[in-house]
């Protein structure tokens, strides 16, 4: 049963490496703490011309899980900002940090020129609509609406006036004396909105307010919220996982994934110029078609032999993209960025000063998972490898991801004049879904499924051949290394 000598050696080496890394982490961590302390001591100057400002916001939970990474956003007054992303992407957490319901681990938050990190939810003068409505079950609708005003010591007449006005806007006047349990989902939603309206707060925060409603009601409430925003014009942050809601409501969209901001832009920007493959597939339905193919000197070559010739500007953009990447990476190497501490690892250590669980684990000799940290040497090597990759991409043929939206694929015979057509391509239809006014045609291109959206002019049977062209004005190219958009 004994362990062989080699294994012992190996184990010893591993332990030494872990110890070395932990020492490294500790040093860097202490340095970070001092830096953070110094930073917090400095006088806080709110940025000009910005209503809400989130600067380098990070959130780490007590269980050392980091939910939000380096969130930066400036919001103008009267904007309706939508945070969108799949569940668990940190959008609700960010919203709750703005609300004051979650503590901000590092970073600064300003609302209306005031540093708000250390203010409670009560002091921030915000109104919030919760996903589950969170109406007080023991109060009538009227009392629910009035509660926030009563706690803020408004006069009875003022409260009455505001409640009645809000009830009128939301058409819930006849339910004012009912209790929440006597209301339907849509009515409860209105009351929840009303509770925010009566406050006339600086900022409205909405956390997936429509996700508990059925599809039809959701659409009508959506337009009601848009109208409401036009009427009240309060600065609003709206969280949703539904890209349609984001597209229809937002003045600007923040797309998030796994705690990182992917792209910030107007709906048009995000739709027409997605920053990476995630945004490209997340925004728009059906999702953008992505097909991996070869790039060689201005030509895209697909696995089935189909070719697309890019024009000069596209080629120039491609070269420019890789030149920029090379310059960026070179700059990181030159500036010795790899010697800076790895903030992500350090932040998760933020609260790891003492925990009973750890103590117990130590006493009972349970194996602890060492925190993995890359040494500066590791990171330098990584950066250099990346640089080489990019250089290769600039010089010769390499893989890229070709992207085209289903609505930018046209049937060979029905091409509007504005379209700059590619060569024609004939593919086998694996499935043609009829959606009333349009077809969603599923086909295979180079081992990837692609979907084309076409007007119904005739019956399209499964397994038939379908001739199509791509609109070259609308094509997208993505880098395979970082999945960032080239075009």
């Amino acid at each position, binding site marked *: 049963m004994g362990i062989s000598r080699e294994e012992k050696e190996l184990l010893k080496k591993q332990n030494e490496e872990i110890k070395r890394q932990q020492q490294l982490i500790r040093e860097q961590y202490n340095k970070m703490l001092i830096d953070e302390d110094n930073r917090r001591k400095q006088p806080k100057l709110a940025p000009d011309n910005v209503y809400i400002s989130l600067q380098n916001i990070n959130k780490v939970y007590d269980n050392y899980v980091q939910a939000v990474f380096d969130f930066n956003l400036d919001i103008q007054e009267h904007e309706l900002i939508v945070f969108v992303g799949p569940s668990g992407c940190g959008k609700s957490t960010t919203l709750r940090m703005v*609300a*004051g*319901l979650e503590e901000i681990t590092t970073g600064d938050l300003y609302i209306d020129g005031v540093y708000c990190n250390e203010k*409670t*939810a*009560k002091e921030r003068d*915000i*109104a*919030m609509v*919760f996903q*589950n*409505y*969170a*109406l*007080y*079950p*023991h109060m009538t609708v009227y009392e629910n609406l009035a*509660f*926030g005003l009563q*706690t*803020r010591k408004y006069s009875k007449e003022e409260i009455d006036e505001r409640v009645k006005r809000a009830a009128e806007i939301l058409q819930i006047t006849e339910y004012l004396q009912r*209790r*929440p*349990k006597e209301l339907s*989902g849509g009515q*409860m939603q209105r009351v929840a909105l009303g*509770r925010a309206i009566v*406050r006339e707060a600086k900022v409205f925060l909405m956390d997936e307010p429509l996700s*508990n409603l059925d599809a039809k009601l959701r659409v009508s409430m959506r337009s009601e919220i848009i109208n409401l925003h036009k009427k009240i014009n309060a600065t609003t942050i709206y969280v949703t996982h539904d890209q349609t809601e984001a597209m229809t409501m937002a003045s600007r969209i923040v797309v998030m994934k796994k705690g990182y901001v992917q792209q910030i832009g107007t709906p048009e920007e995000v739709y027409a110029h997605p920053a990476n493959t995630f945004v490209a597939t997340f925004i728009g339905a059906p999702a953008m078609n992505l097909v991996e193919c070869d790039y060689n000197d201005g030509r895209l070559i697909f696995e089935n032999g189909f070719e697309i010739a890019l024009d000069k500007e596209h080629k120039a953009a491609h070269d420019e993209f890789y030149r920029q990447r090379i310059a960026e990476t070179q700059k990181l190497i030159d500036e010795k960025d790899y010697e800076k501490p790895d903030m992500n690892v350090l932040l998760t250590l933020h609260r790891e000063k003492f925990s*009973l669980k750890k103590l117990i684990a130590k006493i009972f000799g349970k194996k602890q998972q060492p925190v993995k940290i890359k040494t500066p040497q590791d990171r330098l090597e990584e950066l250099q490898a990346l640089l080489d990759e990019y250089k290769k991409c600039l010089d010769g043929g390499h893989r890229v991801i070709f992207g085209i939206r289903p609505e930018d694929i046209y049937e060979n015979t029905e091409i509007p004049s504005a379209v700059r057509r590619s060569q024609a391509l004939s593919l086998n239809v694996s499935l043609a879904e009829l959606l009333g006014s349009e077809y969603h045609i599923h086909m295979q291109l180079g081992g990837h499924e692609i979907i084309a959206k076409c007007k119904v002019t005739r019956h399209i049977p499964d397994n038939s051949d379908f001739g199509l062209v791509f609109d070259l004005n609308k094509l997208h190219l993505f880098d395979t290394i970082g999945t960032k958009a080239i075009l």
Partner: protein
Amino acid sequence: MRKLKRVNKRVLIQTVIITVIVLIAALLCIFPFYWMILTAVKNHDLINQGTVDLVTFDLTWESFKAVFGYNGGLIWRAYLNSFIIAIVQTLGTLFTSSLAAFAFAKIKFKGSKPIYGLFIATLMIPGQVTMLPLFMMFAKIGWTNSFLPLIVPSVMINTYGVFMLRSFIVSIPSGLLEASEVDGCGWFRKYFKIILPLIKPALITLGLFSFIGSWNNYMGHLIYLSDPKLTTIPLFIAGMKETHMTGAAWGRIMAASTLSIVPIAIIYLFCQKYFVQGIATTGMK
């Protein structure tokens, strides 16, 4: 048609069996009360006959008159004292228990779990163990012969109450508290405006337990209250049994016992509808 009848028959038999079982259980519960009340209104001679007689009805109010006349109407004093102790203790317990339960259920602070564990562990210490030390302590600070030793400890700590209310408060969605925070509530406003109204059924149940516990607390009252002015209902009933030469005066004891359950029965009737009620949390989805 035939099949239906057979099914009906089976259901009928089941119903009959269940009804009989429930009836027996109910009779077992009612019987002591029946015996008590019957004895209270029986003729003295019949009580002391030596045999148990449950069906002869030779009724008289003699026993009740004796109870009310005992020691110049001492029973009113006993009622008053019992009420004072029970009500103060109950209200105090409800307040402190719900406050502690709220903290343990909804406020995050370091070590809340271990502290709660320790707190609950005190449930395992039998009351008899602490009886003597407590008495000595209260004797030292001169609290014997007052209501304080009966009220203060149970107001200061009611482990069972905290335990019970905490489990109720935990089930109140945190979203409600967050909403109230956004609406401008601090901790105390949250407690008074949100938590307390929502746990009303639990408070009423706990209040009743506490009231009954205090009302029937013979041992505690016997230990701490020796002044006749401070007598309470349990002590009063115990006092009834001492008569000269004639043995236990069962009629009087039973009459006093009957009178002692009257307030509890009334309270119980009023609170009954709350016992089965859960926490109303609609308004959340």
